[in-house]
């Protein structure tokens, strides 16, 4: 899919340079969106009759530790009408707080819970932000890059890494 066919310019205009188009990726065009504009832009992308991005494929959280801003949310959209794909990227500082897109796409619910569970990203306005894979009492966010692959040592995980005490390095 080439970005040239997609009438994105009209949608981007009101955002006055805050949203930028990145055509570098080989597979689909990509928009860089600040968290504050995310919901408004998503709603517009979904409802604009010339775009109709009504299908949210996936939300992927990424931790680029130790770089800053540390977290990134990647939304993959699909237009069932036009068969187009679009990627949205939203960078977040630590502690990461993003607005929820559940009002735009119902399916975002579990994706956001997964991002919260694995990366500790909070979603403002999420009605049910709980862990989804790990159990409720679990401490830490396993997919973060500073979380050891083996996990931390405890009664159930004798082969885990010794937890580092606060302050010592």
């Amino acid at each position: 899919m080439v970005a040239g066919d997609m009438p994105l310019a009209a949608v981007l205009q009101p955002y006055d340079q805050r949203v930028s188009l990145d055509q570098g990726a080989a597979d689909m065009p990509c928009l860089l969106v600040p968290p504050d504009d995310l919901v408004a832009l998503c709603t517009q992308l979904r409802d604009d009759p010339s775009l109709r991005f009504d299908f949210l494929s996936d939300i992927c959280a990424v931790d680029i530790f130790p770089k800053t801003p540390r977290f990134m949310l990647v939304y993959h959209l699909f237009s069932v009408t036009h068969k187009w794909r679009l990627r949205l990227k939203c960078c977040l500082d630590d502690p990461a707080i993003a607005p929820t897109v559940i009002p735009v796409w119902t399916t975002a619910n579990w994706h956001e819970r997964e991002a919260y569970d694995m990366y500790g990203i909070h979603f403002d306005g999420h009605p049910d932000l709980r862990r989804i894979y790990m159990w409720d009492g679990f401490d830490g966010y396993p997919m973060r890059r500073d979380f050891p692959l083996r996990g931390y040592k405890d009664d159930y995980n004798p082969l885990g890494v010794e937890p580092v005490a606060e302050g010592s390095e």
Partner: protein
Amino acid sequence: MTEATVINEVTTDTGLSREVLLNLGPQHPSTHGVLRLLLQMDGEIIERVEPHIGLLHRGTEKLFESFTYTQIFPLTDRLDYLCPPSNNLGYALAVEGLLGIEAPERAQYIRVIMAELSRISGHLLITGALPMDVGAMTSLLYTMRDREMVMDLMEMITGVRMHTSFCRVGGVREDLPEGAEARILEFCDIFAARISDYETLLDNNRIFLARVENIGNITGEDAIALGLSGPNLRASGVDWDIRRDEPYEIYGQVEFDVIVRQDGDCYDRWKCRVDEMRESLRIIRQCIGQMPKGDVLVDDPKIAFPVDKDLLSHSMETHIHHFLLSANGFKVPAGEFYSAIEAPKGELGYYLISDGSEKPFRLKVRSPSFVNLQSLTERTTNIKYLADVIAMLGSLDPVMGEVDK
């Protein structure tokens, strides 16, 4: 154990009404794995369904980040463990997309044949398991018998029945063994008649129909908002199949129909899959007919092992490449790529971010079952009784290996 907790007791004119919380699973035959459903019920009427997942979570995505690109294949097998070739294919396409290479044509045909065989194997499970969940035990015995034929083919081609790991970046592990094409065609002939048998057994079965027709209807609009994909979405009247609309591999060169049904109830979701198996047979037959001769792996010593194994004993250079490839893997240029394929359960996406090293920086799996299962929680479906939840769950066909990753 299944145990009910009374959360509210109300005495009405007609008697005592109890609101209870009921645990369904994690060990229950109808949950198809380790899924726990927390049901809030008023008598037999469902008020809320809350799936609790994660009991099979293996941290696959965390493991991806510490494995080389070739080592990841066996991990993808274990996502949707009914259809490993599809998982392999989606992942291989993501890596190939970043590398900017394409598998040789024969390899693409072999991959598609394998993927379609696995689609039949996956769909056969639900064809038999949904009726079994609602009480028709016989059908599962028949579908499992026929699934065994697919398993035998897998064993003949790859050497294993379930976790095939047959794809490689840039092709497939090896060519089809001698006689495989004839065996696959023989299977196609036998199996075409068997699909009609299932329909005779179930399609006119009033008890089965009463349990699945007009149960759990999802409208097309809701289905899209819920992120349903694959047969679950097409059963709701949305005409979208990635194989046709964004053809990957050689799907552009074969003819097949996309099965779309309109009602979006449990029956349509089941029937969609039964009909899709026929289309899969059509695709397989065409592939066998059209498949050219040739290599099955790209000729690039930095990415794939040499096609001619004799070179290993003559050529020092081949030997070095072979060693480095085995020991360190290969590097993938920095960048990102999202590959989406039509897996048996729906859109299977792999989002790969590479930092230029031998291991992925981040590899996210968009597993269709995870998204499909979510629609159980929403009140967009007309599930009313406890028994309907079972039918709904069966018709969504989640595979817990893929839900929990």
